[in-house]
């Protein structure tokens, strides 16, 4: 009964200050929503990929070696930490389908258990028959019972489709260096039995050893020992997390994690600030009611909980709404954009993180409420019932500058005093605006940064019209030299080599070998100075230097094919915004006893492209620089979407905070304002008295918002993706746009407050002071 009355009171009180409580609720929902949304995206990508890895029993390493012998398998199998080894054949093959899409062929032994397809339909037989990529099949209208032919070793092999599946290796599937985004129309995979290849190669052939290690195995030590076991015949070792698909999955998940670490913090802060200002005012206004409750015999604890519960309820409601917003809104919108192939798109929420965030939120709302009313409860009922001592005006520091103070108008004096008296309010609104500007500046700068990447790569660094992948079995450097194409050409060999860092770490990293003149690849330092590929050593991109822990002047060891390691000096570093790797001249490569076998030809045409050449059978694939650039932007689309969502939230932040401050400022001074109205102040003069303060916060918020935005952008830049070498810069345009947008939000908010102020009743002035 007694409890019921207090509940009702709480409900009524909240209704009276609904603008404030709704703002707290909105901030809480946004904070939790953003955190949960981004966090569950990370969690979802991680869970789905782990599930697929275990469903397909995916290997931890693949050791590429031509024709692995039983002895090789035995040697790797006995390395400490290795649980299982198998051999397989892995190669890209042309198909007979319209548009000549490529299929990656995995040929497995009939008794194999590693790297299995995750069957969605049909079966994977022990002998002939093939399991086709389910998304590829869908894109090409193929189903069970159809067949597809692939060209291997110059001969066509027809594969009856017995099953449709997903692969743990092809969650994010890219064909080769000409593609930027997964596209099931042009690329997929097919899994067959190794026996099916005997008709083509005369026997079952293998080129890879799949290695499954124990969960606690030291992967780098396994890699080193596998390398020793195979010796000179080793082509390369790829760990699962370094493979194209897995590393893309990891970096996507990483992006969400980075965003979720940075952005929600602001919203928690603002939720706490609004709660503080609302509750302090509410409790102050209820001073005599608190005295009454105490006089009636309510315990200190009951009263404390009563006022704390306001914050707790709003916090709980906000957390629940945030969960919904994050999971069903944020995550649901963004997940389909990530281009990952999963059996389904169920969203996983990390309940531990959600719980932790909710507790943090409850501290920001309930905790602050408790803190706000604790102070009053120490007074006796008699003191409380007597009413609050009237607020006194204070002289402010500005008055010491009497020359200035005497010149300013009375209304500005009033604004100045009032603002300085309610510091917590202006701090709150300044932080709100700072957050809004910061989020917008960060969002736009990140966007600039990402657009800048494609510009840096596809405009500043590369200047070819076409990148042509050539059939290495039919061409060599001399052949390409003699093509007599009408344009500038540059031969490149793109490969990946085993690298041993100075600290002993062993990794597989991309290496580009090209002539020193390099007319179509223009490498530059971070300051924009041109650098050329050194004659006696390698050039390494800046970010890779950081990742591997080397500097120009250090040396690393490179694995040569069919030969041992060789020590090479890192002579030069260059800046590449995306796509980290090493560069070497063809002459230096040859001096390491290696063959320069170009894999691609870059061409800048003098006139129209030579279509005859492009359609000749020495050309495997080609793409234009524009297509690559477009593909790159498709790839970053999801960031753009996330950024628009962030800007919307920045707007909500500014709106909630400024509206609140405006309303607070207004309702605390209704009596003063009504008096001024009676004295003959016009509506708009009254409005300025209240709302000008908001523009001060906007001004300060803008000033502080820009560095905040930079800080956020920089944090994101560093944590975004290990392939990308980014640093946040803030352009004047970004500042201008963010400033204009923030001002617009502030103006709209002030209009809303002004509308509310129209209801100001002059008769308030005649009422007695409570």
């Amino acid at each position, binding site marked *: 009964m007694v409890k019921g009355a207090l509940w009702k009171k709480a409900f009524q009180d909240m209704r009276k200050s609904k603008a404030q409580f709704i703002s707290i609720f909105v901030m809480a929902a946004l904070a939790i929503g953003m955190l949960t949304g981004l966090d569950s995206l990370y969690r979802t990508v991680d869970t789905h990929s782990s599930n697929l890895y275990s469903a397909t029993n995916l290997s931890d390493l693949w050791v590429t070696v031509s024709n692995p012998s039983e002895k090789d398998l035995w040697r790797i199998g006995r390395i400490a930490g290795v649980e299982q080894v198998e051999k397989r054949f892995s190669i890209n093959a042309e198909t007979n389908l319209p548009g000549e899409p490529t299929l990656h062929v995995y040929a497995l032994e009939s008794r194999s258990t590693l790297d299995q397809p995750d069957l969605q339909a049909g079966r994977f037989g022990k002998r002939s028959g093939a399991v086709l990529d389910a998304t590829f099949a869908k894109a090409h209208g193929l189903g069970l019972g159809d067949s597809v032919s692939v060209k291997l070793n110059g001969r066509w092999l027809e594969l009856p489709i017995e099953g449709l599946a997903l692969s743990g290796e092809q969650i994010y599937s890219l064909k080769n260096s000409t593609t930027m985004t997964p596209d099931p129309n042009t690329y997929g995979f097919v899994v067959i039995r190794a026996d099916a290849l005997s008709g083509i190669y005369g026997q079952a052939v293998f080129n890879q050893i799949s290695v499954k290690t124990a969960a606690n195995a030291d992967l780098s030590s396994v890699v080193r020992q596998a390398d020793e076991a195979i010796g000179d015949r080793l082509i390369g070792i790829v760990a699962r997390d370094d493979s194209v698909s897995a590393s893309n999955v990891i970096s996507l998940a990483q992006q969400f994690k980075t965003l979720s670490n940075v952005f929600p913090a602001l919203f928690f802060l603002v939720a706490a600030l609004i709660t503080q200002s609302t509750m302090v005012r509410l409790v102050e206004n209820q001073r005599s009611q608190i005295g009454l409750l105490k006089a009636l015999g309510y315990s200190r604890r009951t009263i404390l909980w009563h006022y704390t519960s306001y914050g707790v309820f709003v916090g709980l409601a906000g957390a629940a709404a945030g969960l919904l917003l994050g999971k069903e809104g944020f995550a649901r919108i963004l997940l389909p954009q990530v281009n990952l192939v999963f059996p389904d798109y169920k969203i996983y929420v990390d309940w531990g993180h959600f719980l932790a965030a909710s507790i943090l939120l409850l501290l920001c709302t309930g905790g602050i409420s408790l803190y706000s009313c604790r102070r009053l409860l120490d007074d006796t009922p008699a003191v409380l019932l007597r009413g609050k001592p*009237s607020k*006194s005006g204070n002289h402010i520091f500005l008055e010491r500058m009497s020359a200035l103070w005497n010149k300013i108008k*009375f209304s500005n004096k*009033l604004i100045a005093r009032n603002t300085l008296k309610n510091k917590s309010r202006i701090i709150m609104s300044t932080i709100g605006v700072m957050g809004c500007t910061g989020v917008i500046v960060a969002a736009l700068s990140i966007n600039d940064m990402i657009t800048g990447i494609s510009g840096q790569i596809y405009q500043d660094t590369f200047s070819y019209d076409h990148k042509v992948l050539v059939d290495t079995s039919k061409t060599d450097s001399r052949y390409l030299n003699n093509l007599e194409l009408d344009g500038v050409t540059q031969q490149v060999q793109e490969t990946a080599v085993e690298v041993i860092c100075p600290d002993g770490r062993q990794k597989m990293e991309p290496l580009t070998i090209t002539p020193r003149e390099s007319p179509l690849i223009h490498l530059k330092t971070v300051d924009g100075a041109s650098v050329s590929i050194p004659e006696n050593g390698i050039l390494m991109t800046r970010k890779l230097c950081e990742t591997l822990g080397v500097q120009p002047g250090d040396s690393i060891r490179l694995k040569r094919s069919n030969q041992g390691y060789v020590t090479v000096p890192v002579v030069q570093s260059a800046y590449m915004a995306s796509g980290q790797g090493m560069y070497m001249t063809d002459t230096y490569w040859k001096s390491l006893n290696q063959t320069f076998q170009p894999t691609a030809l870059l061409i800048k045409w003098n006139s129209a492209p030579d279509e005859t050449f492009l359609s000749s059978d020495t050309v495997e694939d080609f793409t234009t620089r524009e297509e690559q650039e477009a593909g790159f932007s498709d790839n970053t689309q999801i960031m753009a979407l996330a950024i628009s969502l962030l800007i919307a939230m920045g707007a909500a932040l500014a709106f909630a905070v400024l509206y609140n401050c405006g309303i607070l400022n207004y309702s605390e001074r209704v009596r003063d304002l009504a008096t001024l*109205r*009676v004295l003959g102040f016009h509506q708009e003069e009254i409005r300025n008295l209240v709302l000008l303060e908001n523009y001060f916060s906007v001004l300060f918020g803008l000033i502080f918002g820009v560095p905040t935005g930079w800080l956020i952008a920089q944090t994101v830049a560093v944590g975004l993706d290990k392939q990308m070498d980014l640093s946040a810069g803030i352009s004047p345009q970004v500042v201008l746009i963010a400033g204009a947008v923030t001002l617009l939000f502030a103006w709209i908010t002030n209009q809303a407050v002004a509308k509310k102020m129209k209801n100001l009743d002059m008769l308030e002035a005649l009422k*007695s002071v409570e």
Partner: protein
Amino acid sequence: MEFITFEQVEREYRVGDAVIKALNGIDFHFGRGTFNVVLGQSGAGKTTLLNLLGGMDSPTAGKIVVNGHEVSGMSERELTDYRRTQIGFVFQFYNLVPNLTALENVQLAEEICPDPLNACEMLQRVGLGERMNNFPSQMSGGEQQRVSIARALAKNPQIVLCDEPTGALDSETGRKVLRLIRDVANDLGKTVIIVTHNAPIAEMAQTVLHMRDGAISQIETHEHPKDVEEIEW
């Protein structure tokens, strides 16, 4: 010829379906520079009259003319200008802006009025020359009311409207405040209207409107109004 004229002024309020007549067709005149009192119990309609005269409300019927301007029928903006230039208001609870010093509270008039009086002089006139830089919270009720009077007069209005100016003060202080209002208004030639339920105050007025149930029950005129000192309450 008359300075303030009310002709058949009515004011109705709608509360749900019910219509409440707060003023039921009242007529009266006040002359320029006179000292007048509107007397009545609460609910008699005196606050409504004050609101109408002060330009804070408009009548539902009838005509109000002040200084040759018809106040009834003015727009919201015109009413604000009317309050700004014609009316000085003294409130029961002083209504000083707490964030402004005494001087600044008076200076406020300078900012909005075309022809204000000097704020310092006005404060000296009400005897607060020494306390100009104090904030309202640092002053007693009587002092605050004197600032309020200075503020009302500094606007240099034609009419000074006082809503229970002594209501929150003890009798001695109230007496001083009333004398101040009369003396200063007299010197400056202002028309004063005091609204009160405190009958003895009426004795110092030239014209007294007695109000009851939204109508004027009696208009009393004094040829020789009493001095404040002579009034007992």
